[in-house]
């Protein structure tokens, strides 16, 4: 395609990407470098149904004047990135200097909100992604062998977990795994432990969230693999059969190599999606035991009693983007090499 034609095709999408993706990221990056103005306090007397007290109040006129002079706030450089609620550089170096053993050092690190969230986010990503791929693959193989008259309904039912909105799905399961709920009660019976609760301990909460994640995402990989299975060359399969390959060997030497590009595609999508894990944490009320980077952003933007932390949220957002880039690099390099080999 001539360069000119290509450009005239691509410019509307390039413009849209610039406006709706690049510019917002730049604005978030700028925001992350600023914090609010120093507040000016005045002492005032508050009265209400419970009597009067003298308290401090923010001087709104003085604050408004500061804001008008510098609408973005005070420049803070990388201060927000390095403070305790993010990368916590000072806390980490102090923990390193006062360490007695590695375990103590690690537990100090994992006590910091950012690293606590990162540890769950990474565990979730690296456990859910392979399980989703493997489970989806086997479900696709199984469905592909079904007689055609029950194929349609089976595919539809298999897709249901993905169709349910994540927040709704996790809320429903939250009540089902309650000690008085269907799943929670059954588990207590099976394990013969009346105190068993999936919501009580951090470890079981992590397991619950991860199982939920696999349940929710497996249909995506299933449907991609199922589509891929329809394109497996029949003659190669037949010649494998003539060569005496059993069913497993056919899968191992014909089907899997054929579907490998799809595995790369699904891993890319799942790594990105799982790194942004968020809804199940809200739905399962799991913030006491598991937080993720996205949850931290949400928490900052929601604010506690109106203390919305825009700079903080912006910094975590950028760190998330960097995290996604790091995660995807190996997969992208692999794709690039494969592409180069083919071309």
């Amino acid at each position, binding site marked *: 395609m001539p360069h000119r034609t290509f450009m005239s095709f691509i410019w509307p999408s390039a413009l849209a990407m610039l406006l709706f993706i690049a510019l917002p990221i730049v604005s978030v990056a700028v925001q992350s470098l600023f914090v609010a103005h120093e507040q000016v306090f005045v002492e005032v007397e508050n009265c*209400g149904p419970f009597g009067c007290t003298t308290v401090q109040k923010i001087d709104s006129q003085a604050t408004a004047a500061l804001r008008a002079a510098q609408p973005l706030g005070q420049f803070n450089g990388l201060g927000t990135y390095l403070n*305790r609620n993010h990368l916590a550089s000072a806390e980490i170096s102090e923990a390193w200097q006062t360490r007695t053993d590695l375990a103590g050092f690690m537990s100090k690190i994992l006590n910091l909100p950012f690293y606590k969230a990162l540890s769950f986010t990474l565990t979730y990503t690296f456990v859910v992604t392979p399980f989703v791929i493997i489970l989806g693959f086997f479900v696709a193989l199984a469905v592909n062998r079904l007689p055609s008259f029950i194929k349609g309904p089976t595919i539809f039912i298999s897709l249901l977990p993905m169709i349910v909105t994540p927040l709704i799905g996790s809320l429903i399961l939250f009540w089902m795994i*309650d000690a008085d709920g269907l799943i929670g009660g059954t588990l207590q019976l099976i394990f013969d432990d009346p105190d068993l*609760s999936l919501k009580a301990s951090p470890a079981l909460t992590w397991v619950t969230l991860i199982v939920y994640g696999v349940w929710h995402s497996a249909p995506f990989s299933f449907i991609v693999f199922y589509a891929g299975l329809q394109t497996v060359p029949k003659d190669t399969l037949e010649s494998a059969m003539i060569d005496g390959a059993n069913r497993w060997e056919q899968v191992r030497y014909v089907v899997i190599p054929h579907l490998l590009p799809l595995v790369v595609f699904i891993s890319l999508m799942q790594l990105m999606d799982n790194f942004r894990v968020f809804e199940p944490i809200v739905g399962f009320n799991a913030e006491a035991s598991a937080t993720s980077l996205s949850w931290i952003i949400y928490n900052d933007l929601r604010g506690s009693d*109106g*203390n919305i*932390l825009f700079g903080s949220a912006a910094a975590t957002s950028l760190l998330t983007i960097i995290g996604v880039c790091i995660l995807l690099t190996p997969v992208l390099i692999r794709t690039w090499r494969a592409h180069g080999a083919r071309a």
Partner: protein
Amino acid sequence: MNMLSKIALTAAVAIAGSSSAFAGCGVSSGSVRIIANDFPASQAVSAEAMKCDGSGASVSVNLNKDYKDLIVAAMTANPAEYTTSHATNSTLVTLMNDDLVRPLNDYVAKYGQGIAKSQLITVDGNVMAIAFMANAQHLFYRQDILDAAGVGVPASYDDVLAAAKAIKDKGLMDYPIAGTYKAGWNLGEEFVNMYLGHGGSFFKPGSAEPAINNAKGVATLNMMKALSEYMNPDFLTHDSNAVQASWEAGNVAMTNLWGSRAGAVTDGEGSTADIEKNTKFASAPTAAGGSVPASTLWWDGFAIAKNISDADAEATFKVVMASISSDMAKANVDKANWLMPGVPARATGVGVIATANGAAAPYPMLPYMGALHGAAGGELADFLQGKESAEQALADIEAAYRAAAKEKGFL
């Protein structure tokens, strides 16, 4: 919907609209947009406000239990998305921090004849909100269970622990205590209550420097931990709704729950007559040998947005006045401890009154209190799960607060 019911509905709306014109809201123009918390008393108030809809004025209501997370963004817009917001000790400060609400002195002088003086929330001489009810977390207890365990009504948290032990030892209940310990705002509120009960203060005098990492703080945390050992293991996921549900299911014998829930657990719905009959209320327990109930006093009211036209503000004030009238309160006596004059006291309000008479502290109206509250709610879960010491948890709260307070310009 068939034709007949459509006609009936239209007629009902028309009648409701016309009757409101006679009901005397006195509002014939303007747009009134209300956002409020969602619990029985606020539902009654907003239903009354909706009666002013029609005949020239438009009134709309958004009841949302997460309203406090929505109001700052909504009222910062110009014109504001809502003309009036539910306000409490803490959310009024939130709104005033960003200068989002207007003084009401002129409106009170003009239209505020029926208001009791105690309803006026004044800051520096300006009326910033009109309160309509008082609220506090206080003790709910099951008379039958306490009797069966052979213990009296607990007055202190040590009594609560002793009673819980007796109930558990007798095999009456596995988890006799419940609390609103959901990580986040609820857990932070429990910390605030218990710490004030221990006689603590949150900040160094006259500054935003936190001052909770001390012996009183440690005692507070240890008491919370001791209580949590008698709670359902899921306690870190329990908010008021969940606690109310376990109360109504008869799983719990003692809890320190909001006064605004007292009506709901005795309303003849969602529970058995036996449980309701034995549900009693008392002052919030004291702590650490002190005499002050470990609870905070709250008022609920309305504040009016700054970023709206004066005409809308005036219409809003009139609608608010109509919606929190003494007549509305008299028709809904059981739902809250109303502050309006001439409203008879409710039977289920004894807990709030006893807590207030015990001189519990009002929730601190400080600009930086919300940030500390949030830090406590986020950092305490580790301690209650046994992952760290009380001192470490308190140090974490202070550190998390410092980082947030620096970003907000408080420090």
